[in-house]
């Protein structure tokens, strides 16, 4: 299928892309289609997803170094034992990311209009069917980059950034599992519980080359390997304030036995959430506002995100079942 931007203009359909998918965890993307209603944005996992890499490096990172680093990041996602998704490097290319050419391309680009953005992922979606036509990832060449195995002071790690962006490429949105501090007029990440946390820690760090439980649950929920659904459980519930549904709350399930944190969001107008991929057993459920975040990097903006409440814990432990969804529960948050 070949299409160009010019051809796009031939047919005008009034369809909306709804990000994120309502009532699901980890912010999975979805698209509202004309033919199939709302569908989760995901690749056809029955065959490898092909990607190209631009044949151009930047100072300190050759094109082949870059390709090797992103291949390692793809391999990391592919190696999740509870998920079933494969990738195939299709070759180097002169094509650029974010050109509508039916090719999924990763590469460095100079985008002065994206200051303070290390990298970004974009999709072209056929809103008639919900099919992903292509997905591209750009790495901002305005920054200094490295592929050194132990990282390099003053340079951002290609593999770490690639791992995050490939999470988007797969259909995952941002995670809010992270903590920050204000220091010296700037903002610094103290800890993150997901590769999909959107804020950079800083240059020189390579720790984000490894997926965390939230990332693994997310990709496994999107592309489940046989047995995943039967081996894990899901939490389902609703967040309310004053008895009314609350949109945009961050809901975290913490497993004291494994110390795993898996997050989701009350992401529909009924304030409902569902967090899959939980290890069977007791979990602490914490509900918190996104009052320290750029909500536009989590939600698409058509609904107002309510952030004016305090952190609230579900008063009982939630017991994740082995397979299936636990009993629905409601968390009434405390206003500020």
């Amino acid at each position, binding site marked *: 299928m070949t299409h160009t931007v010019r051809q796009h203009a031939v047919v005008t359909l009034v369809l909306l892309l709804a990000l994120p998918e309502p009532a699901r965890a980890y912010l999975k993307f979805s698209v509202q289609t004309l033919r199939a209603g709302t569908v989760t944005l995901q690749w056809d996992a029955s065959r490898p997803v092909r990607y190209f890499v631009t044949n151009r490096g930047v100072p300190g990172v050759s094109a082949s170094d870059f390709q090797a680093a992103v291949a390692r990041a793809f391999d990391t996602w592919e190696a999740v034992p509870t998920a079933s998704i494969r990738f195939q490097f299709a070759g180097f290319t002169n094509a650029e990311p974010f050109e509508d050419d039916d090719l999924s391309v990763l590469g460095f680009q100079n985008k002065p209009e994206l200051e303070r953005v290390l990298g*970004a992922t974009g999709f072209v979606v056929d809103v008639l069917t919900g099919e992903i036509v292509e997905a591209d990832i750009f790495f901002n060449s305005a920054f200094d980059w490295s592929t050194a195995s132990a990282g390099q002071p003053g340079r951002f790690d290609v593999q770490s950034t690639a791992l*995050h962006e490939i999470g988007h490429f797969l259909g995952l949105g941002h995670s809010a599992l992270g903590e920050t501090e204000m220091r010296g007029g700037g903002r610094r990440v103290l800890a993150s519980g997901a590769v999909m946390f959107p804020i950079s820690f800083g240059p020189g760090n390579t720790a984000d080359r490894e997926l965390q439980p939230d990332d693994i649950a997310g990709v496994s929920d999107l592309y489940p390997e046989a047995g995943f659904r039967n081996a894990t459980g899901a939490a389902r519930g609703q967040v309310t304030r004053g008895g009314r549904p609350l949109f945009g709350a961050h809901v975290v399930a*913490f497993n004291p036995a494994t110390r795993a944190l898996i997050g989701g969001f009350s992401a529909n107008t009924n304030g409902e959430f569902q967090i899959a991929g939980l290890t069977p057993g007791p979990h602490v459920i914490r509900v918190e506002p996104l009052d320290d975040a750029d909500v*536009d990097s989590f939600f698409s903006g058509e609904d107002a995100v309510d952030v004016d409440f305090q952190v609230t814990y579900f008063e009982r432990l939630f017991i994740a079942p082995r397979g299936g969804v636990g009993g629905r529960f409601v968390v009434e948050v405390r206003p500020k």
Partner: protein
Amino acid sequence: MINRLLPLLFLLLPAPTLATVFIPADFAELVTGCRAIVHGRVVDVRAQTTGDRRSIETLVTLTAVEHFKGNLGSTVTFKVPGGQIGRYRRVLVGAPVFERGDEVIVFLNATSPSIPHLYGLSQGVFRIARDTGGRDVVTPPPVTAQGIGAERVVRGDPARRPLAVDEFGRKVRDILERVR
């Protein structure tokens, strides 16, 4: 009891890791780093092909209510990545999406003579809502330091409340005064 113990459990996050995408800007950096700060209401959202005709971008037009920094006139148009033309939609993950009627404060930058863009992508957007008392408030409010030492940003901090738009404007002007 559970409410007293559980916050400690949630501090047991894994060791710090490098996340990605955004290099977060302090509010003062946002204010000083952009060319213009505009409070306005979205009156038009229009997708178009980019200048090289290879992709899609969206032009967002505001009717300006107030300029907190710079002056781009009574009608301000800026661009955001992505948009929909025909049956195809290009989405940039993390890029804000605007609709007619949205009331926002946007931090804009531009490399003349190009059309302004959001400074720091989603970091350059503050959305305005009407609170129960009928006030127009910025929510969530900007995260700002209270002192000069390190301060952990605590989600749900009761002190971080939606901020009245005029108070937001005062914060901007205070920062601009300090750097003058």
